[in-house]
Each structure stands twice: as C-alpha cells, then as structure tokens.
C-alpha cells in the first residue's frame, strides 16, 4: 500500500468490476457469465481492502471475508443449477435456454 495511492486501487477495482459487468452482459456461456460475476465480487473485495488499509482498521477485512464465504455458497448453488441446465440441454449456452416466452 505504501507508495501506491488509494485512487489507483479504486481505479483497478472499478475497472475489474466493469470488466465483470460487461462479461455478464455480453457473454453467452453460462460458465463465463458466472466467472464474470465472481470477478465483480472480487473487485469489490479489492476495493474494500484498499479502503481498510487506508483507514487502518479491520472492518473492511471482515466484510471481505463475509463476501468470500457468501460467494462460495453462491458458487455451490450456481454450479448445481448450471449442471442441471446441462443435463436438460447438453449445452450451457444461454441462448439455448429460452423455453419461457410471452
């Protein structure tokens, strides 16, 4: 941290978050979309830790741990859902999953 100003960390975190957001919006492969969401969460962790370092307290670290734990729980459920999509469609392409329509 020493030497690297906060704004750099925030910029890096925001760029990673943006990459994740664009990935979710543009990619069609369910696994890649899921990875993009994980990227967004980890970008947030980076921002939190940068803030925690700057402030010199541990609240941000605690929050980051919560996010990591929750992301793990989400990954368990999300991968199970992707797996059952694959069982039905033999594909994890989001464009193939559109039985529900107006």
């Amino acid at each position: 941290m020493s030497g690297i100003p906060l704004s750099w960390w925030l910029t890096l975190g925001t760029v990673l978050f943006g990459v994740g957001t664009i990935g979710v919006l543009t990619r069609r492969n369910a696994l890649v979309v899921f990875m993009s969401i994980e990227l967004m969460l980890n970008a947030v962790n980076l921002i939190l830790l940068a803030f925690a370092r700057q402030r010199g307290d541990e609240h941000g670290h605690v929050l980051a741990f919560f996010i990591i734990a929750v992301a793990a729980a989400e990954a368990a459920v999300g991968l199970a859902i992707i797996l059952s999509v694959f069982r039905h469609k033999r594909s994890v392409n989001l464009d193939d999953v559109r039985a529900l329509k107006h």
Partner: protein
Amino acid sequence: MAADLAHLSPLLIVCCVGLGILLLDVFADPKQPKTFIGYVAVVGLLVALAATGWLFATGGVLLTQPYFAVALTLDPFALFGFALILVVAILTTLASVHYLPSQRCEWGEYYSLVVFASLGMMVMVAAADLITMFVGLEIMSVAIYVLAGFKRQSPFAIEAAMKYFFLGAFATGFLLYGLAFVYGATGSTNLNVVAEHFAKNDPGLYGIVIVIMMIVAFGFKIAAVPFHMWTPDVYEGSPSPIAGLMAGGVKTAAFLALARVFLTAFGGADFENLAISWREVFYWLAILTMTVGNILAVVQQNVKRMLAYSSISHAGYILIGIVASRSVDGGAVAGSGLFFYLLAYALSSVGAFAVVSMLGKDGEEDITYGNLAGFAYRHGFAALCMVIFMASLAGIPPTAGFLGKYLVFTDALAATHMNLLPLVLVAVVNSMIGVYYYLKVIVFMYMREPRREFETIRSVPMGIAFGLAALVVVVCGSFPDTTIRWSAKAATGNPSADSAISAASVIDVPAPVATTAK
C-alpha cells in the same frame, strides 16, 4: 444477555425450525409422503409468529448486548415485517403440501428451504448494519434460487432458477460495490453511524456512486422497471407456491430493507441535494414501473405471467409509498400507508398464487386463461377467494388493496418535501388499466364454459391457505382500524436508534487514519 436471546426468539425459533425439519427429513421413512414435515414447519412458524406478536405488543425492544445492537434492531418496523413474512411463509407451506406430490418433486428439504428463506428475509428487515442485511439477503436468495428450480425435471423450472440466479448474483455485485463505498466514505457499515457521518460530511462523489449502485441492486430485487426482465420468466417457471413466496415475501423484505437503508442511512438533506437524488430516481422509476408493468400485464395469455407483471406494477405503487416517506431524526419512516399496502399486496398475491397452484397435475402446469374457464363451477370456494384477491390487487373496495392504495395516495398527497400529485395521477390511471386484466380472470372463471376436462389438485391445506388469505384481505379492508394502528406503529420509527448509536460507538471507535499499516 438472556433477555436479548428472548427478544431474538423469532429469529432463533425460525432458524431452529429450519435445522430441525432438515434433520427430520433425514430420519424420516423415505417411502412415506413428506406432508408431515410441512405441518411441522407450519407449527414452528406459528410459534415464531406468536413470539413476534408478543414483541410487537411491547412496542419493540432494545437489544442490550452491543454486538447484537449494532447488527440487528427489533423496532416495530422490523417486527411488522417479521409478522408479514411469517404469515406468507406459513401460507406458502400450506399451499405446497399437496402441490409437491402432484408435481412429482416431493423432497423434504423443500420445507427447510422455505423456512431458511424466511429467516433470511427476517434478518434483512431487522438489519441495522449493511453487513447483516447482505448476509440476510444471501440466506434468502440462495434458498430461493434452489426453490425456483425445485421441479428439476422440468426445463422451465431450471431455466427460471438459472435466470434468477444470474440476475440475483449480478445485483449482489452492485449492492456490494455500493457497500464498499459506504465503508470507504464513512468507515462503518452501521446504518445509524453512516447516517451520522453523512449528516456532518458532504457525501460528494462517493454519495453518487453509492446511490446509483444501491438503486440498481434494489431495483433488481424489487423488480422495478428497467430491472424487471427476469420476473415473468422466473414466476412462470417456478413452482406456483414459490412464485407466491417471491411475490409476497421476497418483495416485502426487499422493500422494507430498501426503506430502512435509504430512509435511515441516506435520508439526510445532503443526499437530496446530490446531482442524483434517490428520491427523484425512485419517482421516475415508480412511474415507469407502474406503466410498463400494467401495459404488459394486459397482453399476457398465461395467468402466472399476468400475476408477475401485476407484481411489477405493484412495485411501482409501493415505490410511491417510499418516495412519500420522510426520514425523521435519521431513522423514522413516516407514512403508514406503505406498511398497509405491503400487507394487502403480500397477502393478495400469495393467495392468488395459492389458487393458481390448484391447476397443476402430474408434473404439468398449464395456466392459461382458457384453463380457468368454468373454474367457478367446479371450485366455488377457490373461485370466490380468487375474486377477492383480484379485487384487492385491482384496488376495489371493500378489500385491503383498496385501502392500501388509498392510504399510500393520501400519504403522497400529504407529503410536503415534494409535489407528488403527478405521480398519484399516473397511479390512478394505472389502477384503472389494472382493473381490466384482473376482471378478465373473473370473467373467465365465472362466465365461460370449460373448454375441456382438466384435472385440479383438491387439497384442504391449500384451501386453508387461500381461504385464510382471503379472510384477512377482506377483514383488513372492511374493519381496518386495528391494521391501520399496527401500520402506524410500524411507521413510528426506530426506538433503538439512540442506543444503537451509543452501542456502535463502543465498538466502532474509528481508528485514526494515521495508523495506516506500513
């Protein structure tokens, strides 16, 4: 300490019931039906409801242990939310016990997932800290992702689960990004501490980032236009009782959490003066949500999709209640109409989905208007209840939905901080559009000959579920005094605000910036 545990009993009971019935399912005879697990869940939730009633009667309690007090607040606001969520969960469970075998997905963990989802919702509405709220949100969401795809042999259910999961997780990302900047700006995530900090300091650029991110995140959860795309697909593909839980429970919890976060933490005057004021944004979102939801509901052929779009348009009406609410002394929610409306809306939609649950058989669900033809001749009671729910959702007296709309609109007209007359006019026009598609359901049920023989589920608990919901909707609409008093009590704000701040300062003593690690 012991007193705190007694005061936390609604949450603790629900948690223990969830764990208990999970174990019950493990040791139960796998060949026997799982119906009894559902009844155990109902009894457990009723006990939690009784505990909530006891706390509500005492007017909310203060948690004394600092570590509890910074995380949770048990004010009437939260307790009203607890009661509503528990009632919705009970009705959902009752509607499910005979629905699950008919859809060939009777696995016992269904009930514990419903209970855990309710626990998450309760934690959300009681959260005094953004971390607690986030954890509650995730307890709820992860359970609901699984429940949405519970009918795993059906491609529709799996698609619903996947859409809900991706958009839910995506929204969580935005929530966390906003949360990180709340922490960065204030050094805390406790709502009262955040409010105090922003009362003294200009939110500035961080404030704008926080407001945008939080609005996007909550917009997905409450299904406000333009963040609503997932709703019809998810409601259509999910098991019908779970669609009721999403419309009645998840949305209630999300709205109450939204009200608490924005009115407590971002309720200060400085947030009004930002380049982007959240009140202005919600004003326009409310107009968009009501109008788009209503217009799309008119053209639907599938009753579940119609109900999904109707729930979107109701999110718009509820947003009026939020815009009209004013934070007083950093914490209070003025505008009891919001609470009454949430009650009317939650019970009407969970009841409507319980009636819709009757229309499934043999793992199939086909819920077009045509299938409702002649419904009233076969199921007079269910049809009558459906009429009550439709009337309530449309806002026709003497149902709770009418009074809810009336109270929200009067709150909005009485608001002094903003001219909300145009918003109310748009809402009134929208209510009239809504009458068309709600009446269409009634017309099909009573005035059309059945096109073909169709099988329905005949189930007493399901009947109890929509019968009870209909009774409450009518009673709250005809004799509203008690409910209005409860709503006003829930709106009187946050008795624990002061103690929470003092408790927070015990722990939170912000470390001076100078101690930054080298």
